[in-house]
């Protein structure tokens, strides 16, 4: 279980996240939806321990996150960002198995987990020996997903994972990602500005405006009963555009 307890975050005196209270249950897929600059990525980064709340605390499985606890928590995290964040000097397989090697897994354990993930993510085997700059954007995101999943995390943090892909590739990956979420059973915290993505994945959607949750609930509720003008405008702008 992931909890935000009155979490605020300010940068240089301007507050980006306002006193956030939010609980995400085990196995739940929660999507933070909102326009760029609304603070949704900041929320995600506080879970990864890349930045720390100004006030309040983030608690994961009963452990408040801090400099001392974050190391242990990160072993249970998977992290995927828009551009993948792959290591350019390592081949696909080296990227994916880096942490397993650090953790002292045997080659047999690594091989078996790798096969499992290749099948799950639909990543082409021949891509394993290529470097990230020799892969397509879609392949890079699948690889990044494999890397995030390798140590069987219980919480997946996804920051616009499909944001940089063109529509066709995106659709394919959306389908596969949905499947991956179902099979791993991990808790997912995903950030996106894309309505379709939110609708596709979310058990629950939180719409963020200027660092505050303005509406939360199942996707259809957001669509059918926008809580205020902002939500309705945000929803309509994308419905018309799509």
């Amino acid at each position: 279980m992931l909890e935000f307890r009155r979490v605020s975050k300010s940068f240089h005196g301007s507050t980006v996240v306002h006193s956030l209270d939010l609980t995400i249950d085990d196995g739940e897929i929660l999507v933070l939806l909102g326009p760029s600059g609304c603070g949704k990525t900041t929320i995600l980064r506080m879970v990864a321990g890349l930045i720390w709340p100004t006030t309040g605390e983030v608690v994961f499985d009963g452990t408040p996150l801090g400099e001392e606890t974050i190391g242990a928590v990160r072993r249970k995290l998977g992290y995927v960002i828009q551009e993948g964040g792959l290591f350019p000097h390592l081949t696909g397989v080296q990227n994916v198995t880096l942490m397993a090697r650090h953790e002292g897994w045997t080659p047999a354990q690594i091989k078996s987990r790798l096969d499992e993930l290749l099948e799950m993510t639909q990543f082409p085997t021949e891509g394993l020996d290529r470097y990230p700059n020799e892969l397509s954007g879609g392949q890079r995101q699948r690889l990044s997903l494999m890397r995030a999943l390798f140590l069987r995390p219980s919480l997946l943090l996804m920051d616009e994972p499909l944001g940089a892909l063109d529509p066709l590739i995106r659709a394919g990956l959306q389908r596969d990602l949905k499947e991956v979420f179902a099979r791993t059973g991990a808790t997912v915290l995903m950030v996106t500005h894309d309505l379709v993505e939110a609708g596709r994945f979310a058990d629950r959607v939180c719409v963020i405006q200027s660092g505050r949750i303005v509406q939360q609930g199942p996707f259809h509720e957001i669509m059918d009963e926008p809580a205020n003008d902002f939500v309705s405008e945000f929803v309509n702008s994308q419905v018309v555009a799509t």
Partner: protein
Amino acid sequence: MKQRPLFKLIALVVVLLVVGLAPLPRRKVQVRVGSKAFTESVILGEMLRLLARDAGIETAHYRSLGGTPVVFRALTTGEIDAYPEYTGTIVKEIFDGEDLPDAEAIRAALKRHDVGMSKPLGFKNNYAMVMTSKRAKELGITRLSDLKRFPELRFAFNHEFLDRGDGWPGLKKHYDLPQRDVSGIDHDLAYQRLLAGEIDMLDGYSTDAMIERGNLRVLEDDLSFFPDYDAVWLYRLDLKSRYPEFLAALTGIEGTINEETMRSLNEVVESRDQNEAQAAADFLGEQSGHKVAAAATSSYGMILRHVAEHLNLVRQSLLPAIVVGAAIGIACQRWPRPGKFVLAGVGLLQTIPSLALLVLLMPVVAALGYRSVGEGSMTAVVALFCYCLLPIVSNTFTGIHGIQRGTIESATVLGLGPASRLAEIELPIALPTMLAGIRTAGVQNVGFATLGAIIGAGGLGQPILRGIRLDDFKLILAGAIPAALLALALQLSIDLFERLVVPRGLKRQPAARD
């Protein structure tokens, strides 16, 4: 096992430091002699070396160490044991401002530095203001006081003379000279410019071979400004107890070299009939009546030796600079606020002129207990090290700084600690940029290392300096060509290394399509 890349990095650092700092076996030297950077001084230095050698003492001669301050300091600090000097220089320059009327007063002053002075060797090498005979005749100039009538004359003096109290400033005042077109020039180049008519007068020495060869006129010092410059040996007083046989040999040739002899020795060397060692050996042979051999080395062997010395300078400076420079670059990137100042400081180091850096470093190196001049001195190594830093520091900084934020953050969230992240992610990604910096530093270093010769540290600069002094183009090339080839070889090896170790993923490639 799981920390392998980190161990590899530590091993690499250790290897670089050990290979860079390991001392080479050195010939055991008992007595060191020095000389200043002009032919006569080098010939006399060679005489000292041969005298000591024939007394059965292992000797090294640090040729052309530099000007008076450098060589005299080397003597007082014990880095050399003896060198040829002139009484006028001792009075006017070393003890400037003290009243030293006679040889006894000079000896007493030197004694304070534990330095002794021999009796005169037999010749004076006075300052000589030199014009071409033709020009002097045209203008009707025979004495220094005649110069007052021709304010448009162009003078060129060597840099030491230009600044010294007993040089141009004093001369100008003494004779009330009006000339304004006065420039500084290297002694060896001045004669060429005088003969070419580009200047009207230069400061020479009364024993200069060029005076006869070039049909030049020495102007009479009619108001007696210049003191006498009797050639003498300066030596450390502890030689009396350490090597009395050397001291005996050294005083044995007091009074035996007259002006004509010295001038002809200078002449045979400058006309390139003989090298300094051979000229000195021939003179000593005539004196003692038995043959003295100057250890002859082939020019091929000489170049090889200088290449080895050169590589040694590069090795000792570049390899530690890679480790230290990378460490500073990493630190600057980690702590950007103080890092900014450190980066600026390293950049400033680069702007210190090389000669100035060498001279500034000498007392520091000596104070730390290292040899500051001569073969195996740390001064040149430290100076070269300083010059290597900037490209390595700034490229390490840029290389790491330029890594995409997402890449670093992914490594962090995956759970890599700072050390593993550095060894496995940051340094490998920054490697191509760092190698470019190391290449720049290395190529520069090979060039700068020629300057080591100025303080007698050897290397390919030595034939170059000697070539300039003797106006011997072949000798200059014998230093310059191998130095250029070395730089090229270093560049190619780094290129090859880069090809071997930089993974395909860090080279520019067209991305695959979906």
